[in-house]
């Protein structure tokens, strides 16, 4: 089973929601759509489901064109961010609904419902109505209904976004297990890079209706194709600084210099580094030192976020441990040369950070 999008695009009343996209989702793969709000995750998912018709392009399922096919005939399942269940039916009937429509036998339905309810830890709630359940249970009910049908394509549109932190963690660890058990193509939309990394599989980074990169999740994370992908797939977003190469020297904002390791032409480039690579102390002799103006610092318990200005750039540093850093003071931050990505002026990746190769 494969789902293939062939130059699929979608525009609504003159505004482009999805630019022409080619995407092939392989059988039994977990695919994460990663992007900020309004980046087109839901639009893309609705196109995959067949809830919306693409403005152009084709959608192939196992090689067959399913572009104009009714949703009912597509053998898909979908879970929304909002907890969508059938409020007038009990949890049991909710989960059984898709099977009943497939005209399965009573015993078959009963077996499947009980199994998936057990998997979702809903067995004690089977007789109750969805609205009598907690948010997490409601969403588990929706997930159970999506899974019980054995659909070839399961679309999860930010299924955990409306849940509280604890439940989210709990369900997030369960989803990969469910996925493995089902053998279907999973598509999972999320705004959080951590979620994508935890789920593994493939990731498609989305930005303003474009898939900027699609590949194995750790690869997309470590080797982002361009600055946009790097920004999307980094939380907090990646920091940037302009860098000039002249001869065998890299000059960072006329403040720090480093030997140029890469075989690049002379010119102006963008250097990017992730917030968690920012250090407050010099760890290696060759580390670069930047003087920044602290805007604000936040302590999350075991980590400290430092928001700072470096010349005209806004940077965020994520450092281990609790550091009380007063606002509006000057702060030196250190950066290992190995953690720096080099992007061209057009944003494309020219040289990945050297730590990536070591990892």
């Amino acid at each position, binding site marked *: 089973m494969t789902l293939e999008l062939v130059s699929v695009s979608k525009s609504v009343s003159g505004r482009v929601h999805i630019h022409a996209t080619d995407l092939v989702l392989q059988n039994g793969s977990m695919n994460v759509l990663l992007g900020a709000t309004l980046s087109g995750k839901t639009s893309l998912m609705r196109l995959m*489901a067949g*809830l919306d018709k693409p403005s152009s392009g084709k959608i192939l399922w196992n090689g067959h064109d399913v572009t104009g096919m*009714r*949703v*009912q005939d*597509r053998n*898909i*399942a*979908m879970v*929304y961010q*909002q907890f*969508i269940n*059938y*409020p*007038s*039916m009990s949890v049991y009937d909710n989960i059984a*609904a*898709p099977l009943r*429509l*497939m005209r399965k036998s009573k015993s078959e339905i009963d077996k499947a419902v009980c199994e998936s309810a057990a998997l979702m830890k809903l067995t004690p709630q089977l007789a109750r109505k969805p609205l009598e359940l907690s948010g997490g249970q409601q969403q588990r009910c*929706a997930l159970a*209904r999506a899974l019980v*049908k054995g659909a070839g394509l399961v679309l999860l549109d930010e299924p955990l976004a409306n849940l509280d932190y604890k439940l989210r963690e709990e369900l997030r660890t369960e989803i990969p297990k469910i996925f493995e058990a089902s053998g279907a193509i999973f598509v999972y939309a999320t705004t959080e890079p951590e979620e994508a990394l935890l789920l593994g599989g493939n990731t498609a980074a989305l930005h303003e209706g474009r898939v900027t990169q699609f590949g194995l999740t750790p690869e997309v994370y470590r080797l982002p194709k361009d600055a946009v992908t790097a920004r999307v797939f980094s939380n907090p977003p990646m920091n940037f600084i302009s860098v000039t190469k002249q001869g065998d020297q890299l000059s960072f904002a006329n403040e720090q210099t480093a030997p140029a390791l890469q075989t690049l032409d002379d010119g102006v480039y963008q250097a990017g580094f992730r917030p968690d690579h920012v250090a407050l102390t010099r760890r290696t002799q060759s580390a670069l030192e930047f003087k920044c103006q602290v805007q604000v610092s936040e302590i999350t318990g075991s980590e400290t976020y430092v928001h700072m200005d470096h010349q005209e750039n806004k940077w965020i540093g994520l450092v281990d441990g609790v550091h009380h850093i007063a606002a509006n003071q000057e702060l030196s931050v250190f950066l290992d040369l190995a953690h720096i990505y080099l992007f061209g002026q057009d944003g494309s990746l020219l040289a990945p950070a050297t730590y990536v190769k070591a990892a």
Partner: protein
Amino acid sequence: MAKIRTQKPGWFSGKALVMVLYILFLLIPIYWLINMSLKTNEEIISVFSVWPRHLTFDNYKTILTDASWYMGYVNSMIYVVLNVVISLTVALPAAYAFSRYSFIGDKHLFFWLLSNRMAPPAVFALPFFQLYSSVGLFDTHIAVALAHTLFNVPLAVWILEGFMRGVPKEIDETAYVDGYSFPRFFTRIFMPLIASGIGVAAFFCFMFSWVELLLSRTLTSVAAKPITAVMTRTVSASGMDWGVLAAAGVLTIVPGALVIYFVRNYIAKGFALGRV
């Protein structure tokens, strides 16, 4: 902490007085109607009595045994039920379309629907009478039912649209994804969700049709004569039959009161056309 003011005990308080007066004034007309219906004509016109001196059920007996009376109720019931059924069957898909799809002129059309209610029924008495007479629908139940749909369909559409708008569109889509066909989804999933809205819409249709006099009287003569029309024609040779008329009045209130009882929890939302 602020002290919580507790109400002083005692049988007299300002609040209670207002309540008692309010209920008193509301109920006096109804009480008087019931009072009259249980008296004889002589007692009604000769003496002032707060309760029946000679309790009698003869008035009710007259109505329930005399076909010219009880057929009035039957006729009214028939066209009211017909009207409610027709109005809802038409309004449900219409309201769904207004709540779910956008099409050219949808907002104007939606408003125009309500403008149908801006004209008094009397305006339509003449065209309906002429039209129904010429196509042979005069003095039939369906004639009155159809005439009333002109006023009830727009109202039902407005009420139902409000209730439907409150149901997230994702439920529709989830149902399609799960394999529900549209008719099946609509009857199995969607209608139970807006059951209270359907109840309220039915109630408003019922009420309009039940109390409307002008059209129903104009469009009927004998075979489909409604109870309200029967009640206006009770002056006989022996004078006004007060008691029977009062009994008829009581029996006319009952169906309305019953229907109100069933939708009492949703009526406020219905008056706001479902938009609460």
